[in-house]
């Protein structure tokens, strides 16, 4: 029997959700227009006043907000409330530039906590659960976000924070931690340490985990589930919108429900900015419709995902988003078609390549865009026959064409011949001279 923290809204008919969204959207737009000069100017440039925004149908007319806006108005210039109304400050880690600061009123903390409480209940958390929070506590939203949500739903919080893995495992054992919250990579690290120290996960009380704050794959999910003997769930969020809990897996593990009464989601073509229908991969854009301090409108996340309005077996009517499949910053436009390196990687993985190393080369020959994908040929893929290798190339090309919509040339290259770089790999070489 599925349980909900806020059943009346989580299972509400779509028309009811949309009605509420329309009301909240128009109020939020007015709040931003009245209090945030940067956004007011942007609306004026678009020829819009708050009166033009009456329902969710008007959402796509609104101008976007970008991470750069938060940087340009550092620290508090995008806030829509005076300091006396603030309750808390968080900040992003600043890994891709200057850190960005976000603020919350008491009301904002409450709705964020409610979102996390809904998420925890959706994965089966009960009042007698011990929610072990191994996200960092501090300016980062992970630790306090899960903490407040777990308290709101009535579970017991173990605020372990991150680090000292041996001690974390000791706490699992002694305190009976039943739900683990941390990054997926840290979950795997905990599993490694447990194995080294001979701790059998079956001897622990752990039954589930909420993992987020970094991209992870279905393969990682399977690995965490097997190695920690738990169910692994995804929780999505970003500090600019709230923090973890913007969207969450339910027990079905078939996409993350967006807390749509607080955050509206759109998927757009990052180039044309056109709103895309269900199932099409594009950039995730969020609009906060109930927050007070920082209700960003049409915030460009640069995360790539799809959404679906298909009913979910759990009974929730909130739209579901897929696991983010990469970043729109990496997008290429080839013959007018948007191509994301992450799509190419997923094809190579599905073709049995364990650790694909590839490079995308785009060129323009006789005014025609051509794409070549160089793939390092691993031992498992190699055969002693030309025919066998050519068949693999053909198959890969067909798979790429069905996924990307254009047919690339596939070239096999020797292992280690594609340059490795520290940190983020530059997998694309665009030789087109377009400027």
């Amino acid at each position, binding site marked *: 029997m599925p349980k909900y923290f806020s059943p009346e809204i989580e299972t509400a008919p779509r028309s009811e959700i949309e009605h509420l969204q329309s009301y909240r959207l128009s109020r939020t737009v007015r709040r931003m227009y009245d209090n945030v000069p940067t956004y007011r100017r942007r609306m004026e440039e678009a020829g819009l006043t708050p009166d033009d925004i009456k329902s969710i149908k008007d959402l796509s007319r609104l101008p976007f907000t970008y991470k750069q806006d938060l940087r340009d108005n550092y620290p508090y210039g995008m806030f829509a409330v005076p300091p006396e109304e603030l309750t808390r400050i968080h900040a992003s880690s600043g890994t891709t530039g200057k850190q960005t600061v976000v603020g919350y009123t008491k009301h904002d903390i409450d709705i964020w906590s409610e979102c996390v409480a809904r998420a925890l209940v959706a994965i089966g958390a009960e009042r007698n659960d011990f929610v072990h929070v191994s996200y960092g506590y501090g300016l980062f939203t992970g630790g306090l976000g899960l903490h407040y949500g777990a308290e709101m739903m009535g579970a017991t919080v173990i605020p372990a924070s991150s680090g000292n893995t041996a001690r974390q495992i000791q706490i699992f054992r002694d305190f009976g931690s039943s739900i683990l919250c941390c990054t997926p990579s840290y979950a795997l690290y905990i599993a490694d340490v447990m194995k080294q120290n001979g701790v059998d996960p079956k001897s622990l009380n752990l039954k589930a985990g909420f993992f987020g704050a970094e991209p992870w794959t279905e393969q990682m999910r399977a690995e965490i589930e097997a190695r920690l003997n738990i169910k692994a769930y995804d929780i999505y969020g970003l500090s600019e919108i709230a923090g973890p809990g913007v969207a969450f897996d339910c027990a079905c593990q078939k996409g993350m429900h967006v807390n749509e009464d607080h955050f509206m989601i759109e998927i757009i073509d990052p180039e044309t900015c056109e709103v895309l229908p269900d199932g099409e991969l594009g950039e995730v854009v969020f609009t906060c419709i109930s927050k007070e301090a920082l209700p960003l409108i049409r915030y460009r996340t640069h995360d790539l995902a799809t959404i679906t309005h298909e009913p979910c077996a759990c009974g929730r009517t909130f739209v579901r988003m897929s696991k983010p499949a990469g970043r729109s910053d990496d997008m290429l436009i080839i013959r007018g078609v948007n191509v994301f390196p992450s799509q190419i990687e997923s094809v190579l993985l599905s073709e049995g390549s364990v650790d694909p190393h590839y490079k995308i080369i785009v060129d323009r020959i006789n005014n025609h865009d051509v794409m070549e994908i160089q793939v390092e*040929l*691993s*031992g498992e893929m*190699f*055969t*002693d*026959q*030309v*025919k066998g*290798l*050519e068949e693999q190339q053909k198959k890969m090309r067909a798979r790429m064409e069905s996924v990307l919509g254009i047919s690339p040339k596939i*070239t*096999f*290259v*020797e*292992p*280690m*011949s594609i340059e490795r770089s520290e940190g983020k790999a530059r997998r694309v070489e665009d030789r087109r001279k377009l400027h």
Partner: protein
Amino acid sequence: MTTKQISIFIENRRGRLSEVTDIIAQNGINIRALSVADTTSFGILRLIVDDPERLEAILRESRITASITSVLSVCIANQPGGLVALLRLLEDIQIEYMYTYVSQEGDDACIILRVDRNEEAVERLTAAGYHGPHA
């Protein structure tokens, strides 16, 4: 009659073949027979060597993609009609590729065959009096 062949993936670019053969020479491995299959973008170098397992390990360490395949090594009479007699025996067996070399021991010509049904080919050839090179 069956022997181990090592196949090496080589990108089609200037100097690569000599780089790979240099690694083989540096490790004191003698090449007894070879063939190269080439396409516009890559080649497959197929070798019969003294110690294919050792060579495979060396190549793996040098991050060169290689694999070992079981092939047939058959002696045929070094005279007109020697090859065609053998091929007739294998008419219904698919031959993926073949190449020849002259053995060091005598007048026989040796032929390396990659077929789709090794065991059946060996049976048939042995019954007809064919044999592999003397090791």
